[in-house]
């Protein structure tokens, strides 16, 4: 049966296809699937085959994607899809109670449709709004700081009105005196909206004419001299990454902005994307000019639909001002930016997984070499930079490398956006000079300390993949090197505070479950090891742990660590190894009485 696709939708589809090179129109597949699912509610046989025909693919190529990316569904869901975040920060804030209340209220289990066809409840992994947890999304709307009662009220209103109200962006919080806001400086200025007019009024896009008057190599040198390190997680020097780009290959160079923020505990890019989109666009255009790219893609995670819309609008505004497009500001430089939406896969945060996903495939990270700088997107030299990294570029060009190096400490120049979630009084995002604050200051001063009556048990310093610090390790300065010396990493800047009510075994299970769910399944140790750890921890949590399970858990993690194609292996192994090592007595207590008889 042929699929009846409305003419305007097909026109939209055809327009999106033009965002990609003609021989790579497959890259449009995630966009197409989003659009078809919006129209038809699900992606069945007809949608798969229509998409395959449209893009010159085999149906298997499309089916592979629908089952890989959790935002897509082959089975019809309720009209309102409730997605409750179950990952660590939200669990610490009580998402379990919300889920139970919703299931009871609607009388359905997970992933079932209510009999009136209105609702389906699912759990989802980290929605990158950890500071306002627990959170859930209903279709495209994000609901923050939930309680079971609030969740119930939302359902009641939807039922009563048959509609979902658009949720406003939360109002930015004024900076703490110990903060140093550079990237977030405009946010709390009066009436600031992040629009083109507001941004230009506050001095935005000044770096663009300046950069276009410079030689590209001089910009690369400036960025290199600034010593700015990548803000995505690995902390690789940005200028050096740019200088690795293969030159003179005769192929186009691509710049990809990694906006697939999904490391549990991290929600900094969300702020930059939603509140300050032009800063990012300015950074991208300048960076494109520096590296010789004429097309950039912003790969934004699928669960940020408003972010994608805000970016699309900002891109239109920039094009109208000739900050984008042909012959930018009359300087002879052409540059286009396209927004590319993901569909719910943490692995797309890994740069080569992202590239594969952008190309319209399962997000299987690539084996290296070759590195993206040589063979990247569409087989061309590619640089992939994080949102925060690129947002720094206009400031470096405006103020110079020397100014940037004044900020922070050697090895960790500039400011950093960190995100705090968990048991503190004032969770949220903070920007400050790297190395100038300790973890203790951050928790006790900026965040106002722990919630009443709670004591600190541990801190995860850089997203849930980074080894936990114990309560007595928090006098560490917040910069790349100090955290590395403390045996962990600054990672993505997602700080999760664990208090004395936290069951470490349960938190380890929560984290293990995340990585098992997000393992792409490509390489053996991660594919098999992550689920094994999750099952083992489930069993231990249910009282069936055996004394030997403590060492076994550590050893399984160790067998993943360093053996995989991409860093998800370490991301899954490190937290487990750290939790088991640092809180061993809790694991031993949990594994005292079981005999392993119950299987999971």
């Amino acid at each position, binding site marked *: 049966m042929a699929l009846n696709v409305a003419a305007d939708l097909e026109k939209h589809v055809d327009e999106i296809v033009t965002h990609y090179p003609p021989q790579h129109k497959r890259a449009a597949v995630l966009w197409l699937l989003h659009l078809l699912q919006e129209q038809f509610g699900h992606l069945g046989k007809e949608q798969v085959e229509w998409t395959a025909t449209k893009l010159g693919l085999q149906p*298997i190529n499309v089916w592979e994607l629908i089952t*890989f990316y959790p935002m897509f569904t082959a089975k019809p869901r309720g009209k309102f899809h409730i997605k409750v975040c179950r990952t660590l920060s939200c669990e610490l804030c009580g998402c379990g109670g919300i889920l139970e209340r919703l299931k009871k209220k609607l009388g359905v289990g997970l992933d079932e449709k209510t009999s009136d066809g209105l609702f389906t409840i699912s759990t989802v992994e980290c929605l990158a709004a950890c500071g306002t947890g627990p959170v859930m999304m209903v279709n495209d709307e994000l609901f923050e700081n939930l309680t079971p009662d609030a969740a119930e009220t939302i359902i009641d209103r939807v039922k009563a009105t048959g509609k979902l109200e658009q949720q406003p962006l939360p109002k930015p919080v004024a900076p703490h005196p110990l903060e140093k806001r550079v990237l977030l400086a405009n946010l709390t200025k009066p009436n600031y909206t992040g629009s083109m007019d507001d941004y230009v009024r506050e001095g935005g896009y000044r770096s663009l004419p300046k950069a276009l008057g410079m030689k590209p190599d001089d910009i690369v040198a400036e960025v290199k001299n600034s010593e700015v390190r990548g803000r995505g997680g690995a902390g690789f020097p940005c200028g050096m990454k740019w200088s690795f780009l293969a030159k003179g290959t005769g192929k186009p160079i691509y710049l990809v902005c990694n906006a697939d923020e999904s490391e549990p505990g991290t929600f900094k890019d969300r702020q930059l994307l939603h509140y300050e989109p032009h800063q990012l666009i300015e950074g991208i255009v300048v960076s494109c000019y520096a590296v010789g790219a004429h097309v950039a893609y912003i790969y934004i995670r699928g669960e940020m639909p408003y972010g994608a819309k805000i970016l699309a609008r900002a891109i239109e505004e920039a094009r109208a001002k000739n900050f984008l497009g042909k012959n930018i500001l009359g300087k002879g430089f052409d540059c286009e930016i396209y927004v590319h939406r993901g569909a719910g896969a943490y692995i797309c945060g890994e740069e080569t997984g992202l590239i594969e996903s952008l190309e319209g495939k399962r997000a299987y990270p690539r084996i290296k*070499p070759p590195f993206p700088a040589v063979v990247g997107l569409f087989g061309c030299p590619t640089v992939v930079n994080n949102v925060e990294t690129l947002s720094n570029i206009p400031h470096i060009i405006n103020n110079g490398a020397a100014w940037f190096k004044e900020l922070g400490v050697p090895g960790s120049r500039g400011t950093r956006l960190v995100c705090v979630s968990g048991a503190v009084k004032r969770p949220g995002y903070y920007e400050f000079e790297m190395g100038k604050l300790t973890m203790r200051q951050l928790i006790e001063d900026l965040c106002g300390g722990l919630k009443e009556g709670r004591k600190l048990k541990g801190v995860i310093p850089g997203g849930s993949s980074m080894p936990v610090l114990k309560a007595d390790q928090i006098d560490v300065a917040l910069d790349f090197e100090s955290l590395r010396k403390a045996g962990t990493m600054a990672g993505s800047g997602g700080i999760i505070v664990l208090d004395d009510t936290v069951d470490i075994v349960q938190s380890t299970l929560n984290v293990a479950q995340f990585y098992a769910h997000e*393992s792409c*399944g490509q*390489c*053996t140790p991660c594919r098999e090891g992550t689920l094994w750890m999750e099952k083992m921890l489930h069993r231990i949590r249910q009282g069936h742990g055996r004394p030997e399970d403590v060492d076994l858990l550590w050893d399984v993690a160790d*067998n993943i660590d360093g053996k995989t194609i991409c860093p998800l292996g370490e991301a899954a192994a490190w937290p487990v190894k750290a939790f088991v090592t640092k809180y061993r007595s809790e694991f031993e207590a949990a594994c005292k009485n079981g005999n392993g008889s119950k299987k999971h």
Partner: protein
Amino acid sequence: MTDPVKLTIDGKEAAAPKGMNLIEAAKLVGVEVPHYCYHPKLTIAGNCRMCLVDVGMPKLGADKKPELGPDGKPVILFGPKLSIGCNTTVAEGMVVHTRSAKVIKAREGVMEFLLVNHPLDCPICDQAGECRLQEFSVDYGKGQSRFIEEKVHKPKKTEIGPKIMLDDERCILCSRCVRFMKEVAGQDCLGFVERGSYSTLTCYPGMEPNTNYDLNIVDICPVGALTSNDFRFKQRVWFLKETKSICPNCATGCNTVLWSREGVVHRQTPRDNDAVNQCWMCDHGRLHYQFINDPNRFVAPTVKSGAMGERFNLTWPEATRQIGERLKALKGKGATIAAIGTTRATTEELFLFNKLVREVLGAELVDCVPHVGEGDKFLLNADRSPNMNGAKLAGVTADPVGSRIPVIAEAIKSGRIKTLIIHGENVAKHGIAEDLLGKLELLVVIDTLPNKVTELAHFVLAGATFAEKRGTFINGKARLQRLNAAIPSPGIARPEWQTFAALLNELGADGKYLAIEDVFADMTRTLAPLAGLNLSKIGDQGVELKLGTVTPPAASAEKPAATVEAKA
């Protein structure tokens, strides 16, 4: 090898060509690096992680030259992580450890991971005995599993087209089959659905593999996930004898292995030969072997001699004597004899056939039946003769091949030809009608299975299939390749060269052919392209011949015969 790269693998000095990976380089010095997903003819996937090795490089000083340690040897720096051998290419001065404690621990870890969700159903698995999981478990497995959780369950019986069955629980997701179908067979039809530990190999319903190369994925599947419907549940592989052979189904001459037990061939698989078929073969050739095991095979020579046309079995000496008697009577009457040979025979058989019918009996109307089908751009040749070049070299063919068959038909019709000797061809399907065959005074047929022609024959001499004899084929690219006998022929059926040799003897042309080697030696004396060769020299990989243009012998009677035809 120009400019070999020098490196050290497990303490052994190795010299490898530039660009070679460490799995292949290790082979050069006799070191096996275990692997699952790597396949030399496919793109690198790097997903199984079994080939992790420890790779070190010389530390370079400020002068970019290797720094020397106190022992005067270069200081070697090892990375913090192991590297996969399949995606690491050799480099000058590289030091590789494939058996260090770190490497062994990693392999043991990978091995354990591969088995945690595997059903461990070796007792009922067809792959048992040739399973890489079993093999490397011996080296890196634990005696007992540490995994006590519930395993992931997946589809057990997915049809991958009509020829292949998939058990997803056994699949280790190495993607060899996915890559083969896409990269070699040219059909992008296999893929993985779901994700993480639930990842499942499948094809889109209604779009199953349907190329002529599908069954190669069963060969390259390192585990028991993909099994051939033709072979599954038939035999334990360790009971099977492996015999190196050549596929007789087209002029490509894919190198094969015949897997047999107690006189029955159970399967045919490709054998590596980069000059011919790499490591693949087509399904058409692979599955066309059942005729070997046909219960209707001729088991003895027979003569049609009863009043009602009944057939009687003969002993070989008796068959030779009776036929010899009839043929001796035809001395000097070569013009009344025609012969049709077969391009499916070995070169040795064709050589003796030619000797018998042309040289001894003086027949001139001699030809072969051409066999043509649809070819493809890969292995399947449109010429379905495994030994057309052998037939041409031996002089058994007309030019063009088969052009003399209508001439023979006409000559039978006109009564000029009274004796016909046919080897292995059902000529009733190829231009010589049954009623014409019925007119012959003597019809001698050498064949393996009954057909219209053997029904009419006065003598049927039971022959052997390619699986039952030694000898050679010359493929379409002039490569001389060797057949080996995998099984004995049924009853007293025997390789045709013996039958031809016996008849030559009977007719007083003793070739002293006691073994196939004697026939080959005789060929090397007569047929220039074979000069200096013997069966041993051909080896398992064959040798390329310089055939040049072989001029097929003309039949002096041909032109007049054609005239006769025209008149008739």
